[in-house]
């Protein structure tokens, strides 16, 4: 035993020896930790609790960590080719055995383990390609590269936005499948909510953890107006926005003096309050049972149903003969898709425009320094309240759309996790960046939908992703702020602010 310890304690001479030693030590640590965390599974049997051992999973964990560490060290020492080949072979085997039932090369029973193997391999492969291209270890200046990328993205964002809008317009034509269009609706809804919250958090710098409250107010406004007065979606949409804006003001007033953490706590409480009220005011809101049979939106009075109620024409009965189409349930989904596309485009244009107006600049100034704002004669109260109200109004529109899409709402849809997801979209995308919100919404909402089989690991991946983003891009993917107004025009800006600054300093 002592001999073994001595061998470990001695510093190996060669580089490969050092790396191997490091990998072995890491492997031992993983084994010690993993044999308890991973190796034992408790099973709830009718006879009582018992446990099973999972030796293979422990082995997998040890292999991944030790191999990954060795690979990273090799890359740091600029030995990239063996790592690249090894990792590619490895991930190929892992991916192969996840997809191909008969081609099981890895002995693991759980396909998740194969997936993790594949991910680790792909990650190492990407790193080694980066090292090969740069010809040195990537530890140099990763942040500045990422900053450059986000600055570049920002510059090309008008073109990217046009391409995205074009794609969004054509999506139902290109993929006329319910699953795809549904996902498009979901992503667009969250984009819109993200842009709304962006006004409050990204521009005005007021951390709002209860945004879902306004979403709920919008949804319930529409549902209740429709339920009690039989009002249509289009009549209720502005009302829902106005109601939500009003609630935004109600929340705004008491929290005017609060900042940072304190503000976050109060908004969090506000979000819960709305939900609890909705549950307990059962004779008005239906309580936990929610409200069902919320009317669907009509197309200028035409319903998207097979057989409409008395006196209501249906879309297919009017347009069927002209366009030569039969009734199909998908049409309603596509119609909903175009509604949310229109709504979110309006919200996007609206918020982009606001940012360039005095009110938008005042929001940003307030985020930067409230004291200085007051010394410049900016009314902090009104400025904050407008931010709250406009953010809430957008949330209310989103809520009304949600209600009409689902046809059924209950307080369960408006839990804190929704607020957290919307906030995560804003923060991950980069505070204040419109394009970043789209990117983050696509990643946060789209990916979990695509990887439905891995649903158990969703929150794990969510957390891991958050941690990684906070390490690599603490200000979000596309955190690059473009001035709202330029003195020298875009060209001079592109020529490089650095050059201008040095010229001025000289």
């Amino acid at each position: 035993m002592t001999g073994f310890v001595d061998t470990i304690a001695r510093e190996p001479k060669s580089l490969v020896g050092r790396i191997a030693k490091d990998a072995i030590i890491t492997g031992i640590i993983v084994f010690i930790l993993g044999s308890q965390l991973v190796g034992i599974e408790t099973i709830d049997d009718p006879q009582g609790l018992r446990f099973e051992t999972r030796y293979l999973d422990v082995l997998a964990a040890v292999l991944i960590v030790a191999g990954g560490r060795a690979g990273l060290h090799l890359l740091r020492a600029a030995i990239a080719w063996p790592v690249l080949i090894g990792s590619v072979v490895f991930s190929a085997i892992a991916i192969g055995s996840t997809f191909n039932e008969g081609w099981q090369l890895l002995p693991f029973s759980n396909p998740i383990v194969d997936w993790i193997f594949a991910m680790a391999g792909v990650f190492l492969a990407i790193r080694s390609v980066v090292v090969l291209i740069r010809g040195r270890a990537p530890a140099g200046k990763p942040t500045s590269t990422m900053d450059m990328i986000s600055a570049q993205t920002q510059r090309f964002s008008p073109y990217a936005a046009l391409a995205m809008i074009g794609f969004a317009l054509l999506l139902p034509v290109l993929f006329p499948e319910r699953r795809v269009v549904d996902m498009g609706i979901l992503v667009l809804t969250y984009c819109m909510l993200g842009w709304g919250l962006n006004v409050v958090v990204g521009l005005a710098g007021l951390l709002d953890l209860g945004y879902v409250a306004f979403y709920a107010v919008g949804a319930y406004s529409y549902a209740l107006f429709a339920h009690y007065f039989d009002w249509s979606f289009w009549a209720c949409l502005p009302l829902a926005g106005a109601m939500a804006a009003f609630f935004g003001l109600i929340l705004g007033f008491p929290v005017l003096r609060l900042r940072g953490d304190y503000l976050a706590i109060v908004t969090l409480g506000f979000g819960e309050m709305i939900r609890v009220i909705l549950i307990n005011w059962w004779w008005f809101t239906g309580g936990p049972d929610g409200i069902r049979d919320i009317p669907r939106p009509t197309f200028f009075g035409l319903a998207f149903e097979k057989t409409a109620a008395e006196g209501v024409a249906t879309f297919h009965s009017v347009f069927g003969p002209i366009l030569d189409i039969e009734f199909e349930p998908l049409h309603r989904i596509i119609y909903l898709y175009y509604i949310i596309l229109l709504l979110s485009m309006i919200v996007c244009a609206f918020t982009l425009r606001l940012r360039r107006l005095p009110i938008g600049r005042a929001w940003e100034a307030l985020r930067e320094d409230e004291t200085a704002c007051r010394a410049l004669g900016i009314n902090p109260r009104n400025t904050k309240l407008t931010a709250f109200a406009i953010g809430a109004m957008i949330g209310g529109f989103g809520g009304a759309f949600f209600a009409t899409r689902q046809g059924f709402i209950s307080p369960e849809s408006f839990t804190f996790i929704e607020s957290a997801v919307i906030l995560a979209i804003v923060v991950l995308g980069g505070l204040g960046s419109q394009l970043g919100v789209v990117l983050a919404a696509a990643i946060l909402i789209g990916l979990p939908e695509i990887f439905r089989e891995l649903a158990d690991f969703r929150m794990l991946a969510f957390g891991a992703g958050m941690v990684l983003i906070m390490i690599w891009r603490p200000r979000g993917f596309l955190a690059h702020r473009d001035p709202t107004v330029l003195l020298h025009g875009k060209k001079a800006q592109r020529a490089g602010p650095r050059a201008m600054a040095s010229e001025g300093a000289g």
Partner: protein
Amino acid sequence: MSAAVPAAAQAAERSEPAAQPAGRKLLTVEHLTMRFGGLLAIDDVSFEAYDRQITGIIGPNGAGKTTVFNCLTGFYKPTAGRLTVHHGDSRQFLERMEGFRIAKDARIARTFQNIRLFPAMSVLENLIVAQHNHLMRASGYSVFGILGLRRYRTAERAAIGKARYWLDKIGLVAQADVPAGSLPYGAQRRLEIARAMCIDPRLLCLDEPAAGLNPTESHELNQLLISIRDEQNIGVLLIEHDMSVVMRISDHIVVLDYGRKIADGSPETVRTDPNVIRAYLGEEEDKQLPDVVKRDLPEVTRE
């Protein structure tokens, strides 16, 4: 430290008329008192400031200079006293106004001892934010702005023009589009003054604008302040530690010590005032001691 300033320039500065023809009375401070719990930070201070004059407020550390500023600009509510701004015949009482209205309606602008720019916003944006209230009205409280009406666009162009004028004056035109936080320290100081000027103030309050500046920058600052006084026809209220700055450019100096006003007058009279000399240089040891201690002193120190 004045050795680094070109001698000719220094001479030029001296030769400027020391006392401008004083304009109308702009600000009257009467019996201003500010108490923080048991600490009397300002004790019954009264003074006046005029149009087209630079009024310096000096005093040793902790004399209450910044507290006077904070009372004037609405950051503190004074315990007692009256702060009157004269608009021709009408008057406004600052102690009754909400903080932001002092800048908006009474048009008193200020800068801060520790610079408070909007660091992530560009230099130009900093100057445009300062014209917020004017632009807000022009944009019909955002309604016209959202619709993109010409009225707002004209107003914005005018605002950029004004910002450009001030950028020209402080020599930062080339850096107009870089984030304000990336400017060097001296430039940030000048930008803060320009930003305060963009609200079209009638009285500009500067809290230690020369702090941390090198002699050249400090000299440029003097030129800027003198030109603001002479060209913009406004009053300037200046807190400063650097005696060379205060004595050179002030038309009128108020000296505070331990929250009380101990002198008030032209630089020459203040410079020779025995109270001021005592406050800055201290007095001889035995003068400060109570009589009882003074009597016993020889015995105690005999050894």
